[in-house]
């Protein structure tokens, strides 16, 4: 039962990792951009949530109605104002620029909020639990997982069943020809980043409710997201969810063996899968 419990808890944790990863996967899929600042943007969203909740007394989940659009707007502005300029045949400029952005965000957060750990307080939600087949599950992890499934389902819908998603895929396939269809790729990229950071907002708030955070933790979230994307297979959103779950389960099972092994066993699972299936478990397929 203990092992089953670890697996179930890991699965639910995987939902959070999938939320870290979804934006990363989306951005890479549409514009081949590896966003090193992704983790810091998640942390930024958590701090925005903190500001909103302390200023208004709102519940952090309710604060999403403000944080999501703000992050989306930041995403669009960031893409149009900065990142579009770095895109080209060379992968290095966007890597360097987003790395620099990561440093800037961390330092700005330090200036604005200090290095003290913070937490979003969600009241009873944080400790509420329910029994399921002999296991005790936290309401928050279960809710997080459910939100991850809904977000990924929604992204999948947008990607494969809307004109915007068609535009994303067309630009990703062939930027030149997509422009001949009247698509301004700079605008499309801006929308993709807006959507990605909207998801990041959700991830950041849920992270902030679950654990305490400080300006330095972005790098770790980037790694988890990155590993989930790679395990799942690039460009496959359901695969990203599966990747998050595998990573989460590896961590909780590892922690069950020895509490010090939690993070390490996640990385080992990632490396094993990378060695066996270099393209991830579910490489790009269409819906």
């Amino acid at each position, binding site marked *: 039962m203990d092992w089953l419990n670890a697996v179930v808890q890991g699965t639910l944790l995987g939902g959070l990792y999938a939320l870290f990863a979804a934006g990363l996967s989306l951005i890479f899929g549409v514009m081949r951009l590896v966003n090193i600042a992704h983790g810091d943007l998640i942390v930024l969203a958590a701090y925005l949530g903190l500001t909103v909740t302390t200023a208004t007394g709102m519940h952090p989940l309710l604060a999403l109605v403000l944080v999501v659009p703000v992050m989306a707007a930041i995403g669009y502005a960031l893409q149009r104002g900065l990142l579009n300029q770095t895109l080209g045949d060379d992968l290095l400029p966007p890597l360097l620029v987003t790395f620099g952005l990561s440093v800037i965000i961390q330092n700005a957060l330090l200036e604005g909020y200090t290095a003290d750990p913070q937490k979003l307080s969600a009241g009873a939600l944080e400790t509420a639990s329910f029994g399921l087949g002999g296991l005790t599950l936290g309401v928050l992890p279960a809710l997080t997982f459910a939100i991850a499934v809904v977000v990924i389902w929604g992204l999948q819908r947008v990607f494969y069943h809307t004109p915007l998603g068609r535009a994303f895929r*067309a630009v990703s396939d062939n930027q030149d020809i997509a422009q001949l269809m*009247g698509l*301004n790729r700079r605008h499309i990229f801006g929308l993709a980043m807006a959507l990605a950071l909207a998801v990041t907002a959700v991830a950041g708030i849920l992270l902030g409710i679950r654990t305490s955070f400080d300006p330095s933790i972005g790098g770790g979230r980037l790694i988890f997201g990155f590993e989930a994307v790679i395990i799942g297979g690039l460009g496959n959103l359901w695969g990203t969810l599966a990747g998050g779950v595998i990573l989460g389960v590896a961590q909780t099972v590892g922690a069950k063996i020895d509490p010090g092994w939690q993070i390490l066993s996640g990385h080992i699972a990632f490396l094993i899968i990378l060695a066996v299936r270099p393209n991830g478990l579910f490489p790009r397929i269409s819906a």
Partner: protein
Amino acid sequence: MPDALLNMTGLDAHYGDFQALYGVDMHIDAGEVLAIIGANGAGKTTLMRAITGLLKSGPGQISHSGVDIGGLRADEIAMRGIAMVPEGRQLFPSLSVKENLMIGAQVGRNGPWSLDAVYDLFPILEERRDQQSTSLSGGQQQMVAIGRALMANPDLILFDEISLGLAPVIIKDIYKALPGIIGQGMSAIIVEQDITKALSVSSRVYCLQEGRVSLEGGSDTVSREDISRAYFGIE
């Protein structure tokens, strides 16, 4: 030529340091079908890329309906009603046949072409509408590429070597469909290496040679000798 649909004056084009077009002067009138011929590497595709804005041209070098479009982005030019069937078809592999057609309509121009009209022209595409575009035969892919351009309801459509790599019988089919396409008042520029094909469907012809216009004339008045001289540069 102020009332030409498209007017190029002294058009230059570069790939880095390499100059691919040298002061090209050309025009096409509304409703006209123009042929552009020339050997491999003469600059035909480059000319298409310059017209559609995929390759930047200088201000004043290209005008469309009297408006300077040199310097406009490719998507802005597409919105004005210039569509292209690119060399090598270049369908979107992640999009189904139907989606490839639908995305052509993204520019939002009104006109006779719709999904139904394209399916009428190429019935096989309706059967295959949910397939990945790259799973089709070469000829069917070419139909998708043509349909995609038509869906924009352009007033000028560019065909860049639509017979390249296709079996002769398929080429015949596609050329048989051309009058039904262009008959609707659309202007067209047809780029071909097959000179006879190009001349048979056009009213005027330009020949490009190493990035320069080497011949201009009526499609039924230019002589074979003029063409071979303009094509190969043999005096």
